[in-house]
């Protein structure tokens, strides 16, 4: 179980069959009245058994859509998974029938959502909502499923689960409801847990508890974890590997240490810079200039170029791909020589260690 903790970030050390989820060139588009939004535009990553991967980015960068695409929970139309493969345990989820996919949802892959206040059905009891998935996937009787619900509530640290299980969501606080969501997600022993901004809607003090809980249950059950967040602090605390998304693409990936301590992509750097730290007291907060590009009108060349402080000629015309980099850890012309252009103006020599240390402390 805890073998998964051994050597994060070293893909090469692992046998290929250890890969639980392999997303290849996923493209999810939304066809809306004003045109087509390429919410996810060629994303590839993989998660090994027991691995923890954080996906980081601003709101609207496509990280939630990636998760919902994996779960196939998007409404089609307006959404369309235009291309790509999502290989889970050797099967392409995109090719499964709806019934086969239902067997995967909640059973093999479970998901925790951002809004604990609205993610539970207000008119059914907690127990009912946990038990129905257990009954469905594990074929347990109503009574057994109910006991399982009590068990999983206990596992997520809810006191007096026998009483709680009969309560309705409105009788619980936000943090408690998120615990229930986690209990529900874990009740069928999933192999992959996707947590989409699980702490964003919670109070700061509760956030830490919930993160601690997610880390703990992940450790105990050995499930792989895909944690989606916009909060670098959350990632640093919880996962071992990280993928940074910008405008529907992964722009940088690697282990948490690599990415946070020595960010390569200017966007990652900007994200790290924009975290306030104690050492910066009295200074102005660094922000990334500008806004996320208009989804209907993506800039030519690198999507980040209009906001990038280091942008140079190729950035305005050529679109960097992370697959073309060697090693494939960053999509930026600063690191990969652009065809027809001179070597990168700036290397990886920027030192961001002191910036990242602010997060870790």
């Amino acid at each position, binding site marked *: 179980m805890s073998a998964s903790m051994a050597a994060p970030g070293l893909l090469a050390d692992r046998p290929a069959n250890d890969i639980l989820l392999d997303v290849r060139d996923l493209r999810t588009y939304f066809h809306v009245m004003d045109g087509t939004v390429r919410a996810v535009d060629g994303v590839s990553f993989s998660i090994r058994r027991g691995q923890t991967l954080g996906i980081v980015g601003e709101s609207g960068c496509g990280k939630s859509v990636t998760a919902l695409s994996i779960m196939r929970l998007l409404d089609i139309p307006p959404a369309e998974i235009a291309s790509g493969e999502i290989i889970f345990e050797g099967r392409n989820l995109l090719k499964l029938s709806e019934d086969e996919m239902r067997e995967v949802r909640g059973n093999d892959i479970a998901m925790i959502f951002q809004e604990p206040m609205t993610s539970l059905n207000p008119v059914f009891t907690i127990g009912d909502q946990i038990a129905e998935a257990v009954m469905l996937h594990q074929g347990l009787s109503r009574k057994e499923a109910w006991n399982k619900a009590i068990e999983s509530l206990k596992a997520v640290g809810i006191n007096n689960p026998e009483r709680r299980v009969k309560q309705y969501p409105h009788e619980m606080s936000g943090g408690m409801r998120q615990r229930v969501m986690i209990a529900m997600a874990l009740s069928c022993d999933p192999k992959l847990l996707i947590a989409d901004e699980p702490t964003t809607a919670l109070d700061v003090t509760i956030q830490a508890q919930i993160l601690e809980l997610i880390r703990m249950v992940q450790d105990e059950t050995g499930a792989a974890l895909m944690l989606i967040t916009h909060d670098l602090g959350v990632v640093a605390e919880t996962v071992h590997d990280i993928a940074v998304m910008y405008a529907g693409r992964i722009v940088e990936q690697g282990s948490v240490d690599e990415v946070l301590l020595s960010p390569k992509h200017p966007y990652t750097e900007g994200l790290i810079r924009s975290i306030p730290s104690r050492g910066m007291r009295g200074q102005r907060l660094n922000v990334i200039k500008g806004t996320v590009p208009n989804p209907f009108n993506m800039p030519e060349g690198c999507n980040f170029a209009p906001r990038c402080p*280091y942008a140079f000629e190729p950035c305005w015309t050529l679109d960097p791909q992370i697959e073309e980099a060697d090693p494939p850890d960053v999509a930026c012309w600063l690191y990969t020589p652009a065809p027809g252009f001179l070597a990168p103006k700036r290397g990886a020599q920027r030192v961001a260690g002191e910036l990242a240390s602010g997060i870790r402390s």
Partner: protein
Amino acid sequence: MTPVQPGSEPDIVDLIRKEGAVDYEVGLESLNQWQLAWRRFRKHRLALVGLGILIFFIAVAIVGPVFMPFEFDVIPSPDKIVYQGRPPSLQHPFGETGGLQRDVLLLVINGARTSLFIGFSSMFIGVVVGTVVGSVAGYFGGLVDNVLMRIVDVMLSLPLLFVILVASRFFGNGNVVLIIIIFGLFSWMTISRLTRSLFLSIRELEFVQAARAVGLSDRRIIFRHILPNAMSPIIVSASLLIAANIIAEAFVSFLGFGVNPIYPTWGNILSNALTFIPLGNWWWPAFPGLAIIFTVLAVNFIGDGLRDALDPRSKE
């Protein structure tokens, strides 16, 4: 934090323009809020169709009787006894009624005048009364609010159709003006509730506090500062009130308790149609009814469009 890259600014402006947010940003100099609303309204295709239909009916109501005069006090002398009426023909495209053998097209055109007049003016009374009551209750609060809202409660607990029916029979006397007043006086309650709730929230806003601090009179604060900001939802409700009142008038007049049949309305034209059922005079009730349906549809579409245009936050 770093020098501005050429090309970044236009992109952002571009973005805003594409998002439609520019209506607020750039439009401020050139367009006032009504022009903006009209822009949004124009995008609502059904609302435009509705507006077209309504304008057509209003034009017919105003101009129609001039070109097609209709003598109500003269019973047309039938060229031969056609008691069961005559179906639509080239001369009488909507047919002729049984009995008095009136031209249905002329009845519908003349009915448009009365029905629309009743619909609009009773709406106007309802909106004025409702807005005043709601403003006073919402602005002053306390005992005034309590008393007024209890009156509203009682009025809303009445089976309104029933009371309007009875009131029209007992007071209306077939008189158009009295009928309008009755309809107006029984249709202000929802508007007053709406206005009150709008006032309750707006009166707490800073600019009202500021107006008070400057020492403006209550009347000025209500009419110059709060009411304009509460206008949009009121207008939307008002548009729907027209439709409701047109149907209600038709209902009351159809039962014979509304407008005197010498002033045809889309409701009272139908009163006698029922007795001609065995003779199969389908064209008699059909056309006035279609006029009602099209008008109400048009008004409802306009209402939808107005809601989208004036109150973009509210959804279906």
